[in-house]
């Protein structure tokens, strides 16, 4: 698939930006702070309904304005869809598909699929478990948009339950929230397990294309060593486990079992990556995770013309020639690639791209 048109209104630094886009490689070159990342951030928002740079939507709206708009036309195998999002300060966002309002912005998920590479990706390997959970969940939503609802319900139930735990609740008051945690938590864990099983071969393959040597591995680590695989069994297991954790949960006022405490354990040969791998190995690993994600979504698409967008935000400057080479191979297999770079020298010499220059909020070819 590819984005043929992007229109931003009061989004970040852009009061009004209209871009006609084409399949193939499009680069945005500009110094830091000129607004090139804002463009790919907007495309990412259309795909994920969230920014890769900020957890809150407020910074996305241009200063002294109440709402921002992102409009994008997506072409998938000859079909065209117009996706629109209105980002509101302090109110719920709204969305339209082909000019029809949708009940929930979540209905937009899955209409534009994209995989984003950023310099912060190193945190996938070196950062806290939350980075890896986010990676899994974002990919899960791209793959099966329904899970956006499960994740939202789980997070809300978790907040409610933790609020209750802080007030020394009666056993009877906790029971309904125990059930919610077990039901939504088990669905999310089971979906993550499925995802990892399908994703891993692609990640292993990608890593081999970047680096020789040890085989990599990734296993899901649940906080309470849950054994089950299916959602139904996991639900029972969590539900039976909850009473044994009561005392600790009451003391600390937090929920101690569930997908919010889990991690993806990455290994290189026999050793865990975190804390042991070199900077170079960590980069290769982070790259392999993103490349694997891209290839999984590609493989599960509806054939030719449904490959997700590939977005490379300022990553070439971070990579040596071997890792650049691996990315170039991926670029060749994509229908549309959006690239940002601070200086032209960061872009590979062989690049056959359409180049835009971003300066002081204007974008010129």
């Amino acid at each position, binding site marked *: 698939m590819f984005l043929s048109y992007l229109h931003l209104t009061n989004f970040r630094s852009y009061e009004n930006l209209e871009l006609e886009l084409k399949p193939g490689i499009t680069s945005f070159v500009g110094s830091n702070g000129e607004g090139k990342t804002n463009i790919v951030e907007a495309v990412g928002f259309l795909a994920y309904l969230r920014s890769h740079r900020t957890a809150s939507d407020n910074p996305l709206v241009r200063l002294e304005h109440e709402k921002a708009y992102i409009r994008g036309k997506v072409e998938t195998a000859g079909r065209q869809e117009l996706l629109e999002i209105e980002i509101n300060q302090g109110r719920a966002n709204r969305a339209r598909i082909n000019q029809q309002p949708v009940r*929930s912005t979540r*209905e937009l998920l899955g209409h534009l699929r994209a995989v984003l590479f950023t310099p912060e990706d190193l945190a996938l390997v070196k950062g806290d478990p939350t980075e890896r959970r986010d990676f899994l969940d974002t990919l899960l939503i791209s793959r099966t948009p*329904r899970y956006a*609802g499960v994740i939202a319900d789980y997070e809300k139930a978790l907040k409610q*339950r933790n609020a209750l735990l802080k007030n020394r609740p009666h056993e009877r*008051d906790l029971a309904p929230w125990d059930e*919610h945690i077990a039901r939504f938590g088990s669905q999310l864990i089971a979906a993550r397990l499925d995802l990892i099983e399908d994703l891993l071969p692609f990640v292993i393959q990608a890593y081999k294309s970047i680096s020789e040597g040890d085989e990599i591995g990734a296993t899901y680590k649940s906080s309470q060593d849950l054994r089950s695989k299916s959602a139904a069994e996991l639900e029972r297991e969590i539900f039976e486990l909850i009473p044994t954790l009561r005392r600790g949960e009451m003391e600390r006022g937090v929920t101690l079992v569930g997908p919010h405490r889990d991690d993806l354990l990455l290994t290189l040969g026999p050793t865990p990556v975190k804390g042991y791998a070199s900077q170079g190995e960590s980069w290769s690993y982070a790259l392999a995770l993103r490349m694997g994600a891209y290839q999984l979504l590609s493989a599960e698409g509806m054939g030719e013309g449904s490959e997700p967008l590939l977005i490379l935000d300022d990553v070439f400057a971070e990579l040596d020639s071997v890792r650049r080479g691996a990315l170039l191979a991926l670029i060749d297999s994509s229908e549309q690639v959006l690239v940002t770079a601070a200086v032209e020298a960061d872009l590979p010499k062989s690049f056959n791209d359409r180049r835009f220059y971003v300066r002081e909020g204007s974008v010129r070819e």
Partner: protein
Amino acid sequence: MYEGAIQELIDELGRLPGVGPKSAQRIAFHILQSESVDIQRLVEAIREVKERVKFCEICGNVSEDVQCRICRDPKRELHAICVVEESKDVQAIEKTREFRGRYHVLGGAISPIEGIGPENLRIKELMTRLADGAVTEVILATDPNLEGEATATYLARLIKPLGLTVTRLASGLPVGGDLEYADEVTLGRAFEGRRTIQ
């Protein structure tokens, strides 16, 4: 900012649900330009609603008397009670004319974040009503969201030991709609709750 009275009115209106700062300003100026008699009627209506409207001592629904019209109606069946969150839910169900029993209005749903626990809802009153033996079925019609479901689960655990039939409203496809437009959660629920055709 406006001076004095008009700004005070805008601030007060802005506190109402669903009224933003711009709407508040529009309503305030509309009031300012309206005929005095019209505004007097509005003022009276607001005063009277606080003075005359009470909550039914049996079900908690809004009422002009000690007991509401539904609880006073001798034709309503005594064996079934439908539990809802708010008075407006009673109106919604009444419009269907499907239910001939009586209601119980909880006054909200359990939500620990907002500090609303079972003790803040009219659950004790419900249990007292169930104790007299006339009721055989309790229909839980709380909202089909996280808090509504939690409230329904809580009540079911409380009521089932009394040996009463406890039912929950079905979730599913909207009538007259297209299957393909249903969201996946609703469609999934509809699948879960499918029925054999008699």
